[in-house]
């Protein structure tokens, strides 16, 4: 079995008297791209906040095995007072003090995320897709073990969303990371992930964990994609 980087044992979370997450048992392996789907308001973002250490579980235990996490948000996670270059640089490891090394690393990430020519732009001067690429560059620049993606492409138009999925996969191929990706888009989940976890409505539980065929950025016609999509729709009671 692959090395676990995140392990949730009986994790529960309540906001006051409202139970949001109820008894999660989940293991995320190193290098895995885990997709989480579920109905609106089921606690997907709360799950990421727990995994990222921004919230503490009210029950159960999360073992991060010493791994560091960074979250990419749907929109608005970039610092608007910093340029694209400065935003990406803010993601670098603080222990790197040599300015030349820092500049070179930032230049690499800008190139990988195709943002070199927009390095001096501010986030509000970019399109939604470009802003998400900056977020990706900043999150990856820090050599973080686990990326937590909170519906990162949901505010984008269909074409940009598809392009961004391919770019995410190619970036992860160049710089492998463990990813937990929350989405409400079933097509996105089955085309991108190594595994899909289907959540119930609040209080959220894991309804099913579904392994997907090997390969990422699948096409709708690829083997197993339609079947997986159908299985998830059935789990969510949408057929």
């Amino acid at each position: 079995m692959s090395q676990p980087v995140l392990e949730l044992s009986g994790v529960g979370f309540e906001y006051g008297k409202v139970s949001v997450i109820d008894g999660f048992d989940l293991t995320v392996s190193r290098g895995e791209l885990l997709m989480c789907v579920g109905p609106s308001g089921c606690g997907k973002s709360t799950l990421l906040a727990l995994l990222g250490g921004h919230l503490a579980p009210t029950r159960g235990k999360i073992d991060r095995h010493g791994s560091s996490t960074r979250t990419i948000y749907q929109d608005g996670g970039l610092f608007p007072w910093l340029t694209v270059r400065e935003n990406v640089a803010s993601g670098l490891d603080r222990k790197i003090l040599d300015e030349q090394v820092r500049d070179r690393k930032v230049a690499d990430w800008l190139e990988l995320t195709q943002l070199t020519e927009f390095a001096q732009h501010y986030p509000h001067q970019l399109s939604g897709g470009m802003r998400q690429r900056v977020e990706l560059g900043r999150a990856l620049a820090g050599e973080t073990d686990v990326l937590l993606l909170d519906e990162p492409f949901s505010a984008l138009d269909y074409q940009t969303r598809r392009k961004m999925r391919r770019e995410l996969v190619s970036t992860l191929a160049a710089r492998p990371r463990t990813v937990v990706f929350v989405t409400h888009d079933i097509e996105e989940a089955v085309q991108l992930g190594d595994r899909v976890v289907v959540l119930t409505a609040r209080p959220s539980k894991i309804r099913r964990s579904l392994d997907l065929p090997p390969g990422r950025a699948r096409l709708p016609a690829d083997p197993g994609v339609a079947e997986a999509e159908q299985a998830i729709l059935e789990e969510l009671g949408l057929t």
Partner: protein
Amino acid sequence: MLRRLLLPAFTGVLLLAAWWIAFAAGAFPVGTVPSPEAVAWAFRSEIEAGRLPDDIIASLYRIGFGYVLGVITAVPLGLVMARSVMTREALMPWINFFRSLSPIAWIPFAILWFGIGDPPAIFLIWLATFFQVVLATAAAAAGVPKVYYRVAEDLGLSSSAILFRVTLPAIMPQLLTALRVAIGVAWMVVVAAEMIAVRSGLGWLIWDGRNGLRMDLVVCGMITVGTIGILLDLVFARLARIRSVRWGFDR
């Protein structure tokens, strides 16, 4: 750019012409409004005697001191109020209470507590600045999106780094707008304070002119006050164009 200079210059010439024509036509009772020529002579004599530059320096010193003191005491308190619900609930009604009081109402106390000279004027300018800036800072800092702090945690920023690299840059556009309003109010207050609490400055020039029925000096002081008010506002308008702040005004 040229239009932005020429249009106000043109309306200024029109106003000057209207004033001159009205004066020449005897529209004003004798001694109530000076002629433009008399005001020009008043400017010349005040500048030649060095009194006008001294008065400008005195007023700018007081506003500079009181305003900076107001800002450096208000911003930290505003930040604390934004973070602590208890502090906010305890202080907000009183901040609003004192903010509603005109600083001019404090003149009797200012003179009793600080005597005559710079301190009472500086105290009044501090009052004019402090309560406005506290409120603006608290509102701006409370409105900083939580996502910035989550990102800052992910990036491993320390508490002081979060303050200087997240909170302050995030509130800067709103804070600059508040500072721009506050400098205008403080400038009005310095003139009022100098009419009563000191014997120098542009407020004193106007008041002294009024005492001597020298309306040319009064208008000379008024024109200087208005011009410096425009210049102070321009400084803050220029600050809003700084690249790292402009995002708040461009969106």
